[in-house]
């Protein structure tokens, strides 16, 4: 079953649909024309570029090029996680990279090599979109984990110090905040799994169905990707937080001010 193409005039028609919300926003006095215009333009250009490079990757299907692409995605995610979590990139770039690279590579390799089993494990059609989807979700989890952990620690500095004074080691003293941060990081994924299919149809499944796949096959892929997202988000959050502890504290177990980005 072929997916119907959207021709250029129809694409133009699609953009025309945006005029309706724009008009409504204008009528209620919200002057967002510039933001809407920039948003739509950026989305279109970015996705057009994605289309070009994905096409190139799929055509070449070179294991090194595919690997290089995953490496680039990991690096971008690494910087993005730290900026959004309010931590200084130069201190945490390595632990975050190790955490996300290990988790993404493990879950993607597990899914592709053991579960899907394509002719070539490096097949761009599988590893690039799957690693991208897992990484995207893992990124959100890591931002929440790091942000929650370090803001809780700063907010509860006196409590943390009290634990140290009562004889706790650094790990024992940070453990309550560590648990809360990991819980906050994986809760959206767990909640997403619990309501999947009831509240909305997941994007990947919808895409596959529109692409001509049988619903059952799309369901199986959706389950596979959700399990990998859950696994990698949990692993990456825990590894990332644990590795960051060695950098964020001085030798006397005091949180170093200089590792946190000034807000």
């Amino acid at each position, binding site marked *: 079953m072929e997916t119907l193409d959207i021709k250029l005039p129809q694409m133009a028609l699609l953009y025309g649909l945006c005029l309706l919300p724009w008009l409504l926003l204008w009528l209620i006095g919200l002057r967002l024309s510039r933001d809407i215009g920039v948003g739509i333009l950026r989305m279109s250009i970015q996705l057009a570029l994605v289309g070009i490079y994905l096409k190139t990757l799929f055509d070449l299907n070179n294991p090194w090029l595919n690997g290089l692409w995953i490496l680039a995605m990991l690096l971008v995610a690494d910087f993005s996680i730290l900026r959004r979590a309010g931590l200084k990139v130069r201190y945490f770039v390595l632990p975050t990279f190790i955490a996300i690279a290990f988790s993404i590579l493990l879950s993607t390799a597990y899914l592709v090599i053991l579960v899907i089993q394509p002719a070539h494990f490096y097949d761009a059609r599988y590893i690039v979109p799957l690693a991208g989807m897992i990484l995207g979700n893992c990124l959100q989890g890591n931002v929440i984990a790091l942000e929650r952990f370090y803001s809780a620690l700063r907010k509860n500095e*006196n*409590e943390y*110090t*009290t*634990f*140290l*004074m*009562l*004889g*706790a*080691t650094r790990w*024992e003293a940070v453990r309550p905040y560590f648990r809360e941060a990991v819980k906050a990081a994986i809760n959206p994924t767990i909640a997403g799994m619990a309501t999947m299919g009831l509240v909305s149809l997941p994007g990947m499944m919808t895409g596959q169905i529109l692409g001509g796949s049988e619903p059952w096959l799309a369901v199986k892929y959706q389950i596979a990707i959700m399990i990998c997202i859950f696994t990698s988000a949990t692993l990456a959050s825990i590894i990332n937080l644990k590795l960051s502890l060695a950098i964020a504290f*001085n*030798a*006397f*177990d*005091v949180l170093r001010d200089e590792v946190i980005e000034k807000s």
Partner: protein
Amino acid sequence: MLPIIRFDQVSVTAHDKTLLAHISFTLFAGDKTVLCGKSGSGKSSVLRTLLGLHPLKSGMVYFQETPLTPASVQNIRSCAAYIGQEPILGADSVREALLLPFQFKIHRGHQPTEDQLIEVLQRLQLPKDILKQNCKRISGGEKQRIALARGLLLGKKLYLLDEVTSALDADSKQVVFDVFSDPQLTVLSVAHDPEWLERCDIVFELEAGRLTEVRRHGNP
């Protein structure tokens, strides 16, 4: 007798501000000491520095004649009880707060019995049903006595007290005075309370991070 605490020309700065400048003093086991001075004179910084919470710019702090280093800091932290103006109990109920330190590896296996819990509460004139109460619902004075009870249960001999009598009524204050009259307990405190000052045998006067005067009087 070896000193229990020794500050040797200790200077501490934080964010380019001098907190302590060339502070030197020595405390022996059983000394009851109080740090006095205006707000910002560095009284609390002395306590925090002793606990390794401020990096030293110069000089050295010794605990039981061992220099304070990352490797030895756990020793003073596990030997000293720090009790602040509004102590943090770190648990929901009073019972959990009292038992909290016994979850940590260093104190595991030394959990007090029910009788020991009640005995320490009685010593501090706290009713035994306070054990069931939520820590958020007890007064500042009760919190201070619970923090003190925790120190006593841990068998601590060194007490670092920051305005510990500020939230106590006359009776509770007397109870705290009685506890610290034990000659085995060493006290380094921050206080303004004249009654407390009178009961301490050494008074350190601080001004802008400098030790300006040391007064010694009779034992409490």
